[in-house]
């Protein structure tokens, strides 16, 4: 009898939990998107409606579940064309010229949006949003501002890719290592407060193969630090060192200032504690190397934390401490933390697509608080938490853990956009190339800054200085960069 009663109470409790979950998932913005999409199909008498998406291939394994759900809710199918993220911007800009209408929506980093908006290949979404009333609550400032360009809504974000620092917990908590560090530096070991503190830790823990330290014999070297330093990636980390606006109010580059020189030097200095060929590494090299346990710290996209905890080959599972981005001391005044939104993915509607309105409704549904949280919690997905609604979601808690969530949401407060104006990729390439020359000792920081300034001015002139100034000022005022003039 007791067993029967217990079973019944478990079933009732389970049902109530489930009901609570469903209730918690109630999301008016998602529901509106579904209803408006269904109404649109009905009003236009569409048979077997289908929309096409150019998809960042990182999401190819997770998105099918959401497409199936959307199709179940609305009857609208979504066909995806996965492509590597390096190739997507050129496809979008190619579409601006070719106007094929092959895709109804694009999934890419937000930094493509300014060029795409200028080329009129992506649609302003304000009219659709007026109908759909999307829910943007809980989205931190820079993410929210990145959805708009030049005053119009062009994209919707579903990914927090602001860079953060991760340390090795097993080393930080090693009593001998802690004591040695304290005696050497007079500081307690833990998440570094500033970039200089991080470099100090990197220097201390940088260990050659064969050495025995703190009772541990290092068969392989332990690198003090890791971070992205390759072409097309360096610029994503640079704002953390610079800690301010890259241009003044009139688009005059601020890179040659004392702050800029200091930032370039700090950016290059920590490289000596990184693997020797770090300048040739991207995510496929950095993530597994971190998982192999051969580094003390890594500055990276947040997903590295989940990767190292879930990858079967990882030797650092459960041995990580997520840290808020260390502060830079480059600007005059108190240290500032700036976690660049280094990648992140958002969704845009093709102006030449066949079903822009349906594409918009799908985007509103996918990026809504409830569906978005489920996407972030998806075990095969690479979306990272970014909005307050993500914190309490049980799936996200299970996937990322409370410690990581606390750090990443704190980090989100310091999130700053990369340069969000037309010509983004060209401006950033100028920066990357010259940073590489400094890291390779081919240029001094001062000479590199002068070259960067010249290169940036050339891009500004080529696109149109007056236009760039207008958009730059608007972006700063809208809160894209945390910093103000």
């Amino acid at each position, binding site marked *: 009898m007791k067993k029967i009663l217990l079973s019944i109470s478990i079933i009732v409790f389970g049902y109530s939990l489930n009901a609570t979950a469903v209730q918690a998932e109630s999301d008016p913005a998602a529901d509106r998107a579904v209803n408006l999409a269904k109404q649109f199909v009905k009003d236009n008498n569409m048979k077997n409606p289908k929309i096409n998406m150019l998809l960042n291939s990182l999401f190819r394994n997770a998105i099918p579940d959401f497409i199936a759900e959307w199709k179940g809710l609305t009857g609208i199918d979504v066909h995806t064309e996965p492509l590597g993220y390096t190739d997507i911007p050129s496809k979008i*800009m190619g579409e601006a010229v070719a106007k094929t209408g092959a895709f109804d929506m694009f999934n890419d980093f937000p930094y493509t949006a300014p060029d795409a908006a200028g080329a*009129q290949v992506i649609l302003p979404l304000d009219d659709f949003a007026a109908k759909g009333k999307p829910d943007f609550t809980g989205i931190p400032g820079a993410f929210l501002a990145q959805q708009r360009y030049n005053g119009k809504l062009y994209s919707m974000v579903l990914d927090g890719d602001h860079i953060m620092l991760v340390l090795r917990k097993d080393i930080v908590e090693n009593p001998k290592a802690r004591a040695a560090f304290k005696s050497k530096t007079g500081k307690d070991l833990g998440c570094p407060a500033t970039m200089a503190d991080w470099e100090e830790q990197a220097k201390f823990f940088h260990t050659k193969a064969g050495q025995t330290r703190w009772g541990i014999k290092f068969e392989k070297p332990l690198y003090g630090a890791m971070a992205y330093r390759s072409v097309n990636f360096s610029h994503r980390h640079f704002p953390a060192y610079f800690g301010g606006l890259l241009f003044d109010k009139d688009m005059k580059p601020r890179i040659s200032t004392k702050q800029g020189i200091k930032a370039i030097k700090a950016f290059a200095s920590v490289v000596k504690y990184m693997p*020797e060929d770090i300048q*040739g590494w991207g995510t496929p090299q950095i993530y597994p190397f971190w998982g192999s346990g051969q580094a003390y710290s890594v500055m990276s996209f947040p997903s590295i934390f989940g990767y190292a905890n879930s990858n079967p080959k990882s030797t650092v599972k459960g041995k990580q401490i997520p840290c808020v981005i260390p502060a830079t001391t480059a600007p005059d005044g108190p240290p500032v933390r700036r976690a660049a939104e280094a990648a992140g993915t958002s969704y845009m509607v093709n102006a030449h697509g066949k079903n822009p309105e349906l594409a918009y409704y799908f985007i509103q549904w996918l990026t809504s608080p409830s569906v978005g949280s489920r996407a972030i919690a998806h075990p095969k997905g690479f979306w990272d938490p970014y909005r307050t609604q993500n914190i309490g979601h049980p799936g996200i808690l299970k996937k990322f853990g409370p410690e990581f969530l606390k750090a990443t949401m704190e980090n989100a407060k310091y999130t700053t956009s990369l340069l969000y104006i037309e010509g983004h990729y*060209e401006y950033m390439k100028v920066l*990357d190339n010259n940073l590489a020359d400094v890291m390779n000792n081919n240029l001094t920081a001062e000479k590199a800054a002068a070259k960067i300034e010249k290169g940036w001015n050339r891009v500004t002139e080529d696109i149109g200085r007056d236009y760039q100034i207008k958009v730059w000022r608007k972006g700063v005022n809208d809160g894209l960069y945390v910093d103000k003039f």
Partner: protein
Amino acid sequence: MNERVTTVADLRKDGITARFSAWLSQERIFRWIPFVMVEGMIICVLIIPFILTIYISFLRWRANRPFEQAYLDGFRNYEAVLSDPGFWLSLGRTFYFAGSAVILELIIGFILAMLVHRIVAGRRIYITIFLIPMMVVPVVAGYNFSMIYLDSGPLNELLWPLTSLLGINPRIRWLSNPLAAQWAIILADIWQWTSLTFLIFLSGFSALPPQLINAARIMGASRAQVFLWVELPLLKPAIVIAIVIRSMEALKMFDPIILLTYGGPGTSTQTIAYYLWEQVWQFNKFAYGAAASILVLILFSVLIFVGIYLLGRQSEAVERGEV
């Protein structure tokens, strides 16, 4: 089974078809058909895009503005290209990569062809093995090399005895040290395209007239003399062909760069093909890219004409029996 087979007679019953068929079969019309088809294709795929490229090169237009807003701006793009140090550095690097790669491909291909030509047993197996790299899709080759060149990868492991003997850091940063990255690109190209020079030289060796070689030997020439004074001059056309074909291809080097270094570190592995791709497809500078392409075309055309002239001279020499 009752299907009726259409005959020529049936077609002739149809007035229009018959008249068209009769018109086509006229000698003066029929002989134009291949010409019109070929010329039509050339106009569509070469002439029109070429004229468009020239037109675009005179526009003030980046793809982050609609094409409708583009306007003619004289030689501004040409001036911008010619005053960009990046353009000249990329061009210089292209000649450096192509020159180094082609010279080594010629030497290695020649030696391999000479050795294989002299081998009797298992010759086909060697030929097949040496031709495999050329058959590998460049993307696959690129990814393989990206693994080989890893800091802790097999190449450094392989070189370890040598580098440790010479006191060099055994962890050569193949893809992140500017000089090593340049040679990583060159080596990848050599691995893939030595097959072609090998093939050209092997056909050259196979075509050597045995009576001349035998005559030289009978007259008392040593093996080295036969090679230097008989075989090598006879192989000159094959050498010129290999130089011209490989140089033209190597000047367009792009795949290994995009797959291995993305032009980095810095700009140390940027070739002219990469530079053009980046300006157009990464920075959306379509008009600037068009102007740069035209300038590159002019420069390379001169080289190609020199190559064609050399080839022509060799053919004439062969026809005259001078070689």
